[in-house]
């Protein structure tokens, strides 16, 4: 994915949203494009187009949008059914895979596929693999998975063809939250490797006390 295009999409999105254009319903930033949904009974296409075009000039001047997060992930075998396989196929040790995955900040390109599911990038070339040839029918909720240059986190149980290399105890989507998806395009996420014991502790806090992940910085 092209990070530069993504950043320009995100900056354009911020500008469009800030303008509060009458008739504009919502926007969806994605990897390389910005989807704009509008009400044609309130505003004509040509008008939206002209206003967005005028906002699209010099898209790199602003500071990068986004918050920083540290997401605890357990990479131990029980939580990471594909880690050994990924390590073998990449010619690395499992601990090296974990290190490479958790030592960098991942950029949230977009949220999609499943409600609240973030697409994160980019992986180092050494970890880039095609999707699994036999997709799973039931990927556990919270699974952290990689394919190609991306990482995703499954917000709910779902079918999926990505390689599962870890799992987070945190909820990343809740329909009752004011913003139901925890992560926003432009956010930066670091993965913090945790032990199975710590996973269980956090999972309990999430389940019983409604413990939520907070950003490291706004």
């Amino acid at each position, binding site marked *: *994915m092209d990070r530069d295009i993504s950043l320009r999409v995100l900056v354009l999105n911020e500008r469009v949203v800030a303008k509060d254009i009458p008739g504009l*319903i*919502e*926007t*969806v*930033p*994605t*990897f*390389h*494009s*910005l*989807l704009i*949904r509008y009400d*044609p*009974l309130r505003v*004509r*296409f040509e008008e939206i187009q002209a206003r967005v075009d005028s906002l699209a000039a010099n898209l790199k001047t602003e500071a990068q949008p986004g918050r920083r997060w540290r997401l605890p992930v357990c990479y131990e075998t029980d939580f990471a059914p594909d880690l050994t396989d990924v390590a073998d196929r990449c010619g690395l040790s499992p601990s090296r895979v974990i290190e490479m995955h958790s030592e960098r900040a991942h950029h949230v390109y*977009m*949220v*999609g*596929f*499943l*409600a*609240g*599911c973030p*697409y994160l990038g980019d992986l180092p070339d050494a970890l880039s693999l095609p999707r699994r040839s036999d997709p799973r029918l039931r990927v556990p909720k919270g699974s952290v998975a990689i394919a190609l240059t991306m990482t995703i986190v499954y*917000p*709910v149980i779902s079918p999926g063809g990505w390689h599962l290399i870890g799992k987070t105890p945190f909820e990343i*989507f809740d*329909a*009752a939250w004011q*913003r*139901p*998806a925890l992560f*926003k*395009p432009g956010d930066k996420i670091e993965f913090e490797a945790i032990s199975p014991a710590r996973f269980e502790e956090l999972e309990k806090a999430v389940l019983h006390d409604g413990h939520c992940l907070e950003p490291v910085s706004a």
Partner: protein
Amino acid sequence: MLPCLIVRNPGLHTTIQDLGRTGYLDNGVPPSGAIDFVNLRLANILVGNDQGEGCLEILHGGPEYTLQADSARFALGGTDSFLDILEPDRKQIEPGRSATLARGARFRVVLGRASSCAYLAVAGGYEIEPVMGSVSTYVRGEFGGFKGRPLRKADQVPLRQGKIAGQGDFLFSRSPQSVPGGGVLTIRVIPGPQQDYLTREGTRCLFNETFSYSPNADRMGIRLDGPTLELQSIEGFVSDGIIAGAIQVPGSGQPIVLMADHQTSGGYPKVATVISVDLPLLGRALPGTLIRFKAVTIEEAQKALSDLEADIQAIAESMQPIRSEAHLNSEHLLSNNLISGFVTGGSEDN
């Protein structure tokens, strides 16, 4: 007991829907909402609700209910679908009018031959907590509507009003502009945004061949049988945003029209987009319906939407109180063309 509808038979797929969610696509949350927003709005108008109030969306098969409230006023929006009152006295409530029922009334919804869906509105609305600003059910996400799922037998769907005061029932003395029936449904589309991924032959197919609404369809999308659409290489195609009505073409070349519960992003070219006005036609269509696509401009699409709004407005203004039951025989209804509809075009066989 709080006022409610008791589900005696859930039907095949009945969910609470309104006009859908807005503002959450960037959270990966689809809009959901009625797949036939026209009939949802008409049903609400007949019972005096806001046009976007939540209704029961009845898909593919008719449910049966018992009313557990002193009284309630219902209206069904759904082309030639009707309410069949089973108790206390057997009678049928024709389309385009409301009906007030008393405690213990048992009734079922019978879907017509011209529509695969219908909307049951109740005066005052169903008592449902909105999620993200909407009562629409998103079954895959397990949220919204009644417990985030289709209705089941013995569910009790709460009603906001336990009793109907004063004024009587209403009927429309004008019916919606009907779409010519007779075989093939013409669906208007705006080409793109990724029409250039089709080969010349693919483009020719899209606009000149006839497709068929496959049995493989749900609120998420409608797979079309028929010719496959030939694509240029989609190697390196980057996932982007999706809107209801997008016609997505996967590698198989078998187009899918994305509907209300669509995923918010997709990794296949979207070669054309069904205009909003024609989405309800697809929502109502039955498996096996033949479909042709016709390219229109954005201006034509905007004009069609203004016309549809004017039509709904005119129907709303045609609403009249029903004076007496004796007045309301089927001859009267037929003379007012009330049991025609969008797709049938004629009332002779109803």
